[in-house]
């Protein structure tokens, strides 16, 4: 029972880090970023290259990896997405093209074999008789801290207020003197950075390979649909729901069936409450 509680929390935290960035860039810039999964994969690979190949100490490599991917996200938004923003379809196509290009680039450079990243924390901890690797616990703690930090940033700072303003009405925000395009870049950096952080944190205990971004991205879609497109609290709640139900299904039935959880969740949400748990009615 406690095992479900702890492992469910870990996967929820990772899902939340992925989904929040995805929903944020959609909510603010109306960019439906199909390359979100490649940020996650790039984060893991950046951690791999920095630690295993270049021998950079882990605690420098992790933030560096996040920064590199955030930079990649900003460049992608500026030069590939922004010129095509007028057409939603073109944005979908270009981000999908980027995700395929990244996957292929990773495949060509590193091959399809699994790569290993050393653990940040080697110790195993025991909570109430449940063994859990320090790495998973670190992912949980980092996830909670990042989400808390993001929430404070958006609610309490001037920049956060500007982001909220743009998400509510980009044109009005522009008239009030908020540099909308710069806000898009900042949000893209945050979005890519959190996804990359998730990739970095899971890299020691999940397999690092070129196609690793696709499935987490599908999960992020599912979470965002269940939580409501563009709603951050919604995606956090949905992450908890999905993370826990997958863990419960894995324990009670088998790990094979976990993939179905997100599919069922999406279908049920779209049938009963299409705007998601906390989505705006405008999503209709």
């Amino acid at each position, binding site marked *: 029972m406690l095992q479900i509680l702890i492992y469910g929390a870990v996967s929820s935290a990772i899902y939340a880090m992925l989904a929040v960035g995805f929903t944020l860039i959609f909510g603010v810039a109306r960019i*439906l970023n*199909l390359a979100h999964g490649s940020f996650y994969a790039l984060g893991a690979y950046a951690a791999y290259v920095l630690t295993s190949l270049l021998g950079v100490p882990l605690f420098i490599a992790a933030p560096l990896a996040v920064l590199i991917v955030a930079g990649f996200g900003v460049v992608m938004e500026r030069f*590939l997405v922004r*010129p*095509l923003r007028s*057409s*939603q*379809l*073109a944005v*979908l*196509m*270009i981000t*999908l*093209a980027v995700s*395929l*290009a990244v996957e*292929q*680039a990773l*495949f*060509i450079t590193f091959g399809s074999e699994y790569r290993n990243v050393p653990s940040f924390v080697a110790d195993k901890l025991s909570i109430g008789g449940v063994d859990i690797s320090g790495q998973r616990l670190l992912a949980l703690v980092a996830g909670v801290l990042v989400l808390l930090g993001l929430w404070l940033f958006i609610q309490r700072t001037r920049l956060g207020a500007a982001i909220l303003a743009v998400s509510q009405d980009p044109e009005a925000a522009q008239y009030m003197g908020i540099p909308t395009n710069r806000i898009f870049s900042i949000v893209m950096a945050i979005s890519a950075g959190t996804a990359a952080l998730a990739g970095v944190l899971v890299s020691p205990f999940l397999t690092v390979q070129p196609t690793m971004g*696709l*499935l987490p991205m*599908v999960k992020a*879609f*599912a979470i965002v*649909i269940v939580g409501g*497109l563009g709603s951050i609290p919604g995606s956090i709640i949905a992450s908890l729901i999905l993370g826990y139900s997958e863990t419960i299904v894995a324990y009670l039935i088998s790990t*094979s069936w976990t*993939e*179905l959880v*997100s*599919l069922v969740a*999406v*279908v049920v949400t*779209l*049938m009963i409450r*299409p705007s998601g748990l906390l989505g705006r009615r405008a*999503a*209709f």
Partner: protein
Amino acid sequence: MKRIAPIDIAGGILVVAFLALLPMFAASNYLTGVLTVCVIYGIWASSWDFMSGLTGRENFGHSLFIGAGAYTAGFLSSIWSANPWISLPLGVVIAIAFSLLVGFPTLRLRGPYFALAMLSASAILQRLCLIFWEYTGGEEGIYGLDPLMKNPLHYYWFVLAILAVTVIALTLLAQSHWGLLLRAIRGDEATCQAAGINVTFYKIVSLMISAGFAGLGGALYAHYQLQVSPPLFSVVVSITVIIMVYVGGIGSIYGAAVAAILLTLLTEMLRGFGEYRLWIYTLTLMLILFFLPNGLIAPLWRRLTERLR
């Protein structure tokens, strides 16, 4: 109802005749095989174009229908050793069933739900194929399907005839009152709804038509390869099809079919590049998005024949 211009009919007949005679000049099974795949891609691309090109609801998981048709053929022919000709109608039926499953909850909604749901559904189905490997053969897939026809050249002609029928049927539909409604939905869904058009109904039925042809193509592909495997469901298949439609000129249907044939031939010629092939594809897509938003084939054909219309 708008008539199809005589010049378009002439062009179509010319292209089909050329394609039918092409294997005669270079009598090699290799060329016939490549052309068969080209033509099957043509069926997939034109079926994508019918739904997504006309209504503007972009389908990012066309491989779901392709794979459904192909796996239906695989199960029927290889595991239950049914008559291979049953695969074609049943492949269509199963693909349509999948289109209802995904389309019904998502097409009622505006916004990006349909695109996301299709992408997710095809990715999840690919995973399920691997997870339930006892039934689906896992990575290896299903082997040993029966061919529909012994002679590969006859099979190629058969597939080419199906492509011709597909393109004609979809073009007639697209130019009918029905197609006009679909285009109107792309233009402004709210206005259509206000005008009393049952928007959801039209979107779902056009997805069913699109899925049916894709499933047919999938079954034809399975009976050509004589095996099916999970990559049929992959996002790469969907994106390849979408790129073909983009190159062909979105919403034109015949353009999608021609572009599919040309691009598949091109891919075959690029086989030497191996891993870089998909890169070239992705790059093509990016260039077209930036520089040729209306595509290449259909605008070119229209310009060439402008004076003859």
